[in-house]
């Protein structure tokens, strides 16, 4: 059979998007996939981030603000670049990226520079890389690659369990840094991606219940401790945490135990938010921030600063904008043409959700202080780039064109 005959008898499927037929790995025409609504929401958040970072900088020292603005302009080309790449290539390279990230995490364990007792950096000349941040994206890619690879086998228990080994290795490595917050952020990513990948419901429910029981167990164990015991280095056998981390968990349950340390931070953060009231104290008028009562006001507690200066209405609006941003991401996932696209977008959405929820909950004293940044608002260039790369990946996924407000 000639090729023409073959073409006549078996006509090619109609492609939803012409670009996909392109054999080019990098194609600028994929830029049309940039979703205008998501892009607009992102720009709004970035603008709020700039305004807020300007307010966070005091005493005529705008170095943080300048760096915060600059990283966006560094990130924007990266976003466009990632959008232009064929996402199947990215997924295909996931095992290599995964191996590389494991290598980096091991390297950082031995050669990393420790900052503030929990985060670790690799100093590379003038730049410092925080491998645990970009690792979140790589975990999403790796799990996507894995789920696509095994297909329906996910319903089998041993393939199901293998998922936890894939995500467990970086969790343990990050945990050993020790960076409790980032390590924990991989858990919901794994669970939600398993769910979307189509695992058996009862597998999933049993895992979630087991996790909840484990958390309850930790609570009971921590409950039996006292601050003195924790400072003396005592910890539950299965929970080899550093005293300051255990102390953070402890002060979450008993905030009055450590009014000067972690308890002080949440306490002052609550005062900062609460004293803003309905209408706020006005732009650059927040007394708690200006007088340095609010700790880490440009990184982990930036939301408190926003809430203090802008009041309840605008703070609630900010949270709603975050909500719309997340829902739009999920909508894009729903209309992705392939399973791997859905998985990537959902995974990245969960990264965003986890950071937004945990960070804001911490500032409002609902969770122990773990040091997670707020996307687009917190100062922290590794995480900022991670967010922008994540959005780039979301855009690079091909979608059906029949959804609401499609561009």
């Amino acid at each position, binding site marked *: 059979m000639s090729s023409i005959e073959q073409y006549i008898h078996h006509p090619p499927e109609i492609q939803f998007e012409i670009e996909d037929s392109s054999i080019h790995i990098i194609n600028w025409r994929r830029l049309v996939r940039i979703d205008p609504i998501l892009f607009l929401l992102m720009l709004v958040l970035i603008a709020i981030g700039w305004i807020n970072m300007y307010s966070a900088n005091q005493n005529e020292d705008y170095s943080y603000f300048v760096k915060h603005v600059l990283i966006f302009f560094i990130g924007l080309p990266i976003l466009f670049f990632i959008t232009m790449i064929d996402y199947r290539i990215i997924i295909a390279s996931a095992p290599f990226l995964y191996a590389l990230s494991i290598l980096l995490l091991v390297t950082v364990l031995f050669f990393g520079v420790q900052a503030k007792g929990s985060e670790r950096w690799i100093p590379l000349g003038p730049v410092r890389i925080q491998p645990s941040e970009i690792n979140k994206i790589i975990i999403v890619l790796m799990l996507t690659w894995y789920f696509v690879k095994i297909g329906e086998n996910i319903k089998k228990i041993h393939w199901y369990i293998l998922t936890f080994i894939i995500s467990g290795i970086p969790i343990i490595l990050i945990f050993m840094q020790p960076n409790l917050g980032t390590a924990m952020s991989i858990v919901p990513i794994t669970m939600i991606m398993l769910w979307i990948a*189509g695992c058996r419901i009862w597998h999933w429910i049993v895992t979630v219940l087991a996790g909840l029981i484990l958390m309850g167990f930790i609570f009971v164990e921590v409950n039996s401790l006292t601050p003195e015991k924790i400072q003396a280095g005592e910890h539950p056998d299965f929970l080899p945490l550093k005293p300051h981390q255990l102390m953070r968990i402890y002060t979450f349950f008993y905030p009055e135990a450590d009014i000067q340390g972690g308890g002080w931070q949440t306490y002052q953060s609550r005062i900062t938010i609460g004293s803003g009231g309905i209408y706020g104290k006005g732009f650059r008028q927040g*007394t708690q921030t200006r007088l340095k009562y609010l700790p880490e006001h440009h990184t982990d507690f930036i939301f408190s600063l926003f809430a203090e200066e802008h009041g309840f209405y605008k703070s609630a609006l900010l949270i709603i904008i975050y909500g719309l941003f997340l829902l739009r991401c*999920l909508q894009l996932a729903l209309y992705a043409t392939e399973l791997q696209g859905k998985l990537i977008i959902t995974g990245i959405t969960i990264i965003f959700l986890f950071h937004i929820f945990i960070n804001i909950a911490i500032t409002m004293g609902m969770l122990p202080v773990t040091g997670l940044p707020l996307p687009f608002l917190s100062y922290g260039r590794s995480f900022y780039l991670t967010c922008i790369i994540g959005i780039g990946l979301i855009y690079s996924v091909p979608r059906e064109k029949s959804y609401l407000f499609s561009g």
Partner: protein
Amino acid sequence: MSENNTSKNKFFYRFILVIFIVVSSITILIFRLWTIQVRDAELYREKAENNRIWPQRIRADRGKIITRDGTILADNRPSADVVFVPGDCPSEHYKNVAETIENLLNIPSYWILEQIENFKAEPFTQITIKKDISRSDWIRIEENSFQLPGIYVTVQPQRRYPLGNTAGQIIGYINETTRDELILYEGKYFPGDFIGRTGIERYYENILKGIDGYMTVTKYASGRPQLRTDRYGNLLLVRKDTRGHLLTEETEQRQPPIPGKDLVLTLDIQLQELCENLLTSQQGSIVVVEADTGAVLAMASSPNYDPNIFVTKGKDAERLELLQNKQPNRMTNRAISEQYPPGSIFKVFLAATALEKGVINSKTTFSCPGFFKIGGTGREWKCWQKYGHGSVTVREALAYSCDVFFYNVGLKLGVDTISEYCHKIGLGEKTGIDLPGEVPGLIPDRVWKAKINAHKPVWEQKWYPGDTVNLSIGQGSCATTPLQNAILMATIINGGHRIYPHLNADFVPPRPEEQIFSKKTLDLVMEGMKLCVEPIGEARAGTGKLAKVDGITVIGKTGSAQIMSLEHHKKYKSEEEIPWEMKDHAWFVAGVIDKTPKIAICILVEHGHHGSSAAAPLAQKIIHFFYNEKPKKDVQLIAKEPTGEKNY
């Protein structure tokens, strides 16, 4: 296409969970935000304000204590401290500054450099280099200020008692509050505050203290705001806190302090000085009271002390010595805080009471054989005149201090009447003078004896006529303070009115309620007391003749309060051999009735042995000074205008 749709639906169901998680997360966050920012906003706003606001107390200046003629007894002088702020000085100049300070103030430069090193974390801390520098040092620092960056002089008021020992016990002193007091007066006194300890400083603490003001400063989370003063002592906020944050005062919220009121005392400072001089090298007390008003003109107590010891730095040894309660206690105001048996002075009271009650009259006579017996008992009470005074009337009995006459009078009056009148005049109870530490003294009566002997057999609790006899000449358990006796004297000469002694010139004495003694009574008593001092007609002068002042009618009464029984004294051959501490206390009360203002004087010389020889001459000097010398001196003083150095 249909296949595609079903797969989409399948995923849609799975996505519902994720959408649910997102929506519920957002809802939880907004709800929590609402509880904090809307429901509990007031609470958190208050907490934020408490964080931010640093109310700094501005200590009110303590009021001065002055006398009626304007003499300053207590005031505040500027005390200058040198402080160094490392942050205001370039670090390369540290060494130069330290060396300059070493030259000027003789403070080792290495110590200063050490201090700078200690405060490295908070470079804008004010390091106190030297406290209370002298005026010349101060001037030298100001002169060299161009090469002393970061060196400042701050000024605080420091209490000063310009007259030193004079009236020291009356003025009292101030001291830093103790921890117990800080708890007791929480919110009123703060660490570093001074509080009056004794005397006027303590009694009028509330008036002298003033009301503190407040300034409001917005404070940073780290770093402490600090205060300094300009060279006039006005409090300023230092622009940078200890960590160098710029601070501003919220001036519209400033509450200026209300300085303490100046207190004017009734004391006549010249008379006070004279009285204290008269008692030099003796133990005792002199009280001079204006008879009509109760204003205390002089209240001397010897030995005395200089209250400056307590407010001046570097007098710890003297302070310790004073507080060790060595005998004789220099801090005790003997005029009010010590009690002595009044001895024969009590006879003045007894005579007046008996005449008032009609128990005796001017013609009543009792025979004095030199001793006295109560029928049925074996005990014998002696008169100080061994062979007796013969038959005496009340006039002579007062003039010559006949004991037997008053034994009889006392028995006739009975203890109940005596204690009733004591209460009316104010003997044996607190006079209510505006000084702390007053003791009531004691006039024994039936109730007191029963109470004090409650644990003893019944017959010991009973009041016997013998007790009345003892009381009649101011012996036994009877005890009064010099001030009480001065009041007794004032009551005699002011027409029989109770007086309320006071030191505060603003004190308005209560209206005289009732006339305790009638004019007739008092004329008789005063005649007897006049005879005590000077001869009248044929009658020779009595025991107080040394108190006579030419041209002034002085009435008086001597007293010798036994502290040992007469038998004890008999062991010694002559009076000189009796050890000092066993000698009687010498009393003399005196009054001037024909001059204005009428003054009543009470003199006590501890172990002076005889009122007539030890105490009466002092009265003479006081009266002479007050009516003859002082008016001349006052004229001279007016001619010499006092230098008007502005007080701090």
